[in-house]
């Protein structure tokens, strides 16, 4: 546990984690405390922030703070689903490619290259053109972002695994009869675990950004409230050009904070572990 106490001595890490956990708490606990429904019409549209509606009212007469709290929850869920899928795929395929080599490696590398090139926007465009709007929920959007964003990370995991495979201790493991699966799970994964955590953080924030982008373009979320959907509505009703800032600034601010906090966490993990383990 000394690693944790060490990490907690790095100001960047602490600051990043604190901001991120605050946002997570807002999304999880916020709606339980601020008990206003995000879909009810609560007053005249475009009422500016006031004590009764701290972030004002949006184009459809709904409470913006309630929207924001549910939106954070939705966006975090999209991030978790997409990052989970992308991390699972990239870790699995990257390590398998490195450890098995040969044809397996070649095939996985070509597939990953294709997935690096095909952006999720294009896949979403096709889906959006056909799926009924009601079908585009958190799971679907998260899934599409997830399966289109693993390519680059798979290459990262592969090259880290390859450099670890050169180590003597891998040869020792082979001489101890360790299977390739055991080498992946017991030798490689523990060593690259800081990198895994860092990549999860980066995948998480880029998924949240991607959802916002997809939804603003009109091919993303339609069903569940996310930061993207709030901004989509704001854009659809030309809030920005009317100077109605309270539907635009809060969700974008949260996005930026999520990015900055996770970026801080990721780089402090990387800086802390990379020199230590030499191989990483």
């Amino acid at each position, binding site marked *: 546990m000394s690693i944790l106490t060490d990490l907690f001595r790095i100001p960047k890490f602490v600051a990043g984690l604190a901001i991120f956990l605050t946002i997570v708490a807002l999304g999880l606990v916020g709606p339980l405390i601020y008990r206003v429904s995000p879909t009810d019409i609560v007053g005249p549209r475009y009422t500016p922030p006031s004590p009764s509606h701290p972030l004002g009212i949006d184009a459809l007469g709904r409470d913006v703070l309630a929207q924001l709290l549910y939106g954070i929850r939705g966006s975090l869920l999209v991030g978790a689903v997409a990052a989970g899928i992308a991390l699972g795929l990239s870790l699995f395929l990257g390590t398998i490619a490195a450890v098995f080599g040969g044809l397996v490696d070649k095939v996985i590398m070509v597939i990953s290259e294709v997935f690096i090139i095909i952006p999720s926007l294009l896949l979403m465009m096709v889906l959006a053109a056909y799926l009924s709007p009601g079908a585009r929920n958190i799971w679907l959007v998260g899934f599409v972002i997830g399966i289109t964003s693993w390519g680059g990370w798979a290459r990262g995991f592969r090259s880290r695994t390859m450099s670890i495979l050169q*180590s*003597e*201790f891998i*040869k*020792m*493991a*082979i*001489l*101890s*009869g*360790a*299977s390739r699966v*055991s080498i992946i799970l*017991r*030798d490689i994964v*523990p*060593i690259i675990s800081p990198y895994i955590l860092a990549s999860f953080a980066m995948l998480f924030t880029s998924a949240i950004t991607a959802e916002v982008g997809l939804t603003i373009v009109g091919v993303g979320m339609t069903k569940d409230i996310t930061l993207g959907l709030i901004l989509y509505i704001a854009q659809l009703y030309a809030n920005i050009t009317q100077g109605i800032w309270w539907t635009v600034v809060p969700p974008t601010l949260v996005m930026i904070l999520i990015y900055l906090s996770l970026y801080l966490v990721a780089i402090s993990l990387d800086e802390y572990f990379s020199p230590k*383990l030499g191989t990483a």
Partner: protein
Amino acid sequence: MSTILEVKNLAKIYEIGYIRKRQIVAVDKVSFSVKKGEIISLVGESGSGKTTTARMILRLIKPTSGVIKFMGRDIWRDLRGGSDLRWYWRNVNGVFQDPFSSFNPTHRIRDFMYRAFNLFNEKLDRDTKERLVREALQMVGLIPDEVLNRRPFELSGGMRQRVMIARIFLIRPMLVIADEPTSMIDATLRLGILRLFSKLREEIGTTIMFITHDMGLAYYISDRIMVMYRGKIIEEGTPDEIVNNPKHEYTRNLLDSIPKLYTSWFK
């Protein structure tokens, strides 16, 4: 004495360079055999192909050509599937040069030792395993309670090398390939490590192939010495034959470079 390992025309050629290929002949058609119970040394300067030979015998890298036969079985052609490989490594195992990089930094010494049970066909319960591991550590002069829960970076280089040899005591293979096991540890600890190899042979009857660049060391411990130079074995004989009557120019140079002190600090 019967032959347990036979190497014939073994060669390894590395291709380097991504676009413009260049070939390095690391091992050049080497042939020799190892007899049961002997300590045979492979001596040569840096880059002469010793490690490459060892790794091929340990079945860690594939030879470019040639045959390695252990107990009559061609290890690159006759061993198929996991159980054959486990049988082979149960009988032929190794000790490496670098006590630092031979351990996964995230594993405890216990994990390192327990992993060798993969090679065992017999099903052992947890208590038996623990007992065997502890016995093996005691064999090499370590106190099990002091090392089992430590991670490698909490131990000194000499202790780690002892743990590696303890692993051999646990596996009890017929043949051990020891690739410069003493070259990276403190000079004052070398003798202790060398004694462990003698102990291995006396108590378990292990055959040992000892790889070193140090002719003095080879002379001190071996029954037989092979001299390797630029991928080829250029000379072979008992230590006395080699020292008293070197046939090859290169061997003579190696002998000249032995510090005169050597013999005295070994005894």
